[in-house]
């Protein structure tokens, strides 16, 4: 369940950018590891308390997302999807290189957000970190829904998603919306990174596998659909822990991609795709 929530967050990040720009954004992968990195920095280099460090890390990731769009994607002024996707791959390599340079290659440990004594709820004991992940993810998804339904920017983003040219004609600033979508993707990825690194330990490439599984979740749910992303993430997380339990934990990482290939075979539009 907890890893499912993380996949859902990452999948949402992929969907946001896909809906406004029509591309697969491979930098999402690094937003995850970078979120964890900034959390680590906030906690240990600056010495912030957890409730401050978390929003700070997410906030910085929002800025990073915007910077990536502004400096990396927008100058190309290309409509060619192939070029844009390769650009995100290049930017992702650069981000990974920068992380390696700043934080080094060693694995780091991030402490859990709220202690390590298990909490008992209705007879089942659950680690506080897992609880925190579920609660914060649910909160984030709720806020995201409010954002898309009730704010100008959110509505503008949905407009751009449904028709790019029409949105431009009615006066929506498409460039700004694209930057906002990257900011959102950065924030979501960063949040996922902050939440997951206490479980996985932190290194510059921790996001790669997580991010790709998030992508698999997005496709499983139907690429571009927000409820689909959440459903895909949760079901992928469940499938993964089931397969680790019943089959073999050595091949746990393979499950996501076998599922992905099967989905492409049987129901290419995903669970909730149109």
């Amino acid at each position: 369940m907890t890893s499912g929530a993380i996949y859902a967050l990452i999948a949402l990040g992929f969907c946001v950018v896909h809906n406004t720009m029509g591309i697969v954004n491979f930098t999402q992968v690094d937003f995850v590891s970078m979120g964890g990195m900034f959390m680590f920095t906030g906690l240990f280099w600056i010495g912030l308390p957890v409730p401050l460090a978390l929003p700070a890390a997410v906030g910085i990731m929002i800025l990073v997302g915007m910077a990536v769009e502004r400096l990396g994607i927008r100058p190309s002024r290309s409509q060619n999807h192939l070029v844009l996707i390769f650009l995100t791959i290049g930017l992702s390599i650069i981000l990974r290189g920068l992380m390696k340079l700043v934080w080094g290659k060693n694995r780091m440990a991030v402490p859990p957000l709220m202690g390590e004594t298990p909490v008992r709820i209705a007879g089942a004991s659950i680690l506080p970190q897992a609880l925190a992940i579920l609660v914060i993810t649910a909160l984030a998804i709720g806020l995201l829904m409010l954002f898309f339904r009730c704010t100008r920017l959110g509505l503008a983003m949905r407009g751009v998603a449904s028709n790019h040219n029409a949105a431009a004609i009615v006066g929506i600033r498409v460039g700004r919306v694209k930057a906002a979508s990257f900011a959102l993707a950065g924030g979501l990825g960063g949040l996922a990174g902050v939440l997951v690194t206490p479980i996985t330990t932190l290194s510059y490439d921790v996001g790669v596998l997580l991010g790709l599984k998030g992508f698999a979740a997005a496709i499983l749910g139907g690429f571009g659909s927000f409820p689909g992303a959440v459903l895909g993430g949760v079901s992928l997380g469940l499938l993964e822990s089931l397969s680790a339990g019943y089959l073999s934990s050595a091949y746990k990482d393979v499950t996501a991609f076998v599922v992905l290939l099967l989905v492409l075979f049987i129901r290419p539009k995903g669970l909730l795709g149109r």
Partner: protein
Amino acid sequence: MNAKDKLFYFFYLHRTGLTVLALSTLLIVWPLIVSNPYNLGLSNLIAIHVLVVLGLNLFIGYTGQISLGHAAFFALGAYGSALGSTTFGLPAWPVMILTALAVALIALTVGLPALKLSGHYLAMATLGFNIVVYTILIQWDTVTGGPSGFAGIPYLSIGGLVFDNEVRFHYLVWIFAMLCLLLSLNLVRSGVGRGLAALAEDETAAAVLGVDTRTAKVKVFVLSAVFASLAGSLFAHCYTFVSPDSFSIFVSVDFVIMVVVGGMGSIWGTLFGSALITLLPEWIEVLENYKDIVHGLILVLILLFMPRGLVSGIVEMVRTRIALSRQRHA
């Protein structure tokens, strides 16, 4: 038309054939010029990369799709040859062909469902496939040797001639590379290739003009996987040792960088892109820590300023300059 014009026209008409001839001559005398085995080893590695990147470039440049899993086909070729010729002790050449056929079949099963969809599902499917293959190579250590690799693969041989040093291997790999280059050059200029070029430009328009876009994509994907598999087999027999590290997803990304640097859809650019990216780590050894950043920057800058590749980009820039200066003087 005077004699000079005729000569120029002759060169222009046969430019492809003449370039191939010149390149072949250079490659034949290459071991005489470069005797250092290390440098020859590098140029052999370039040839192996050229094989993979040629197929990948046909696929990316001519069908407009992305594969981020060619290192997986490369791996299957290498481990297929390694297992067949070492563990089972079968003769190397037939194993190589059987492996290529098996890889073609696998590529078909991966590509068929993913290529039916519009959009870039194949990028993900291939990436996932690469991770699956990589994980299996590491985890199934009784067969593949696990993370420490698979050693003791025999050298290739024809009759009594064993390809056991860099010079002999140079001729072997470059013969393969040149044959595939010729095949690709001819494919691109055939009716099928023109159809593919139309497909890369605009899929709907190509379909309207009667190009069977879906099967065309699958065919090119399978062809590129076969090229990668052959390259993998050669790689295994050349180094007599393979380990999973040579086949991670980052290697796939490097192949894609080679395609972009050489120019998507440019067959000759493939040679240049593969050579540049293979040699780059040798030149920037000082900047070892910055290797990733440099690779990423190269990719981003080329895409931003010369989306058609370094060679075409520079040629176009020079042409524009010349045209501008002529206009100014006229």
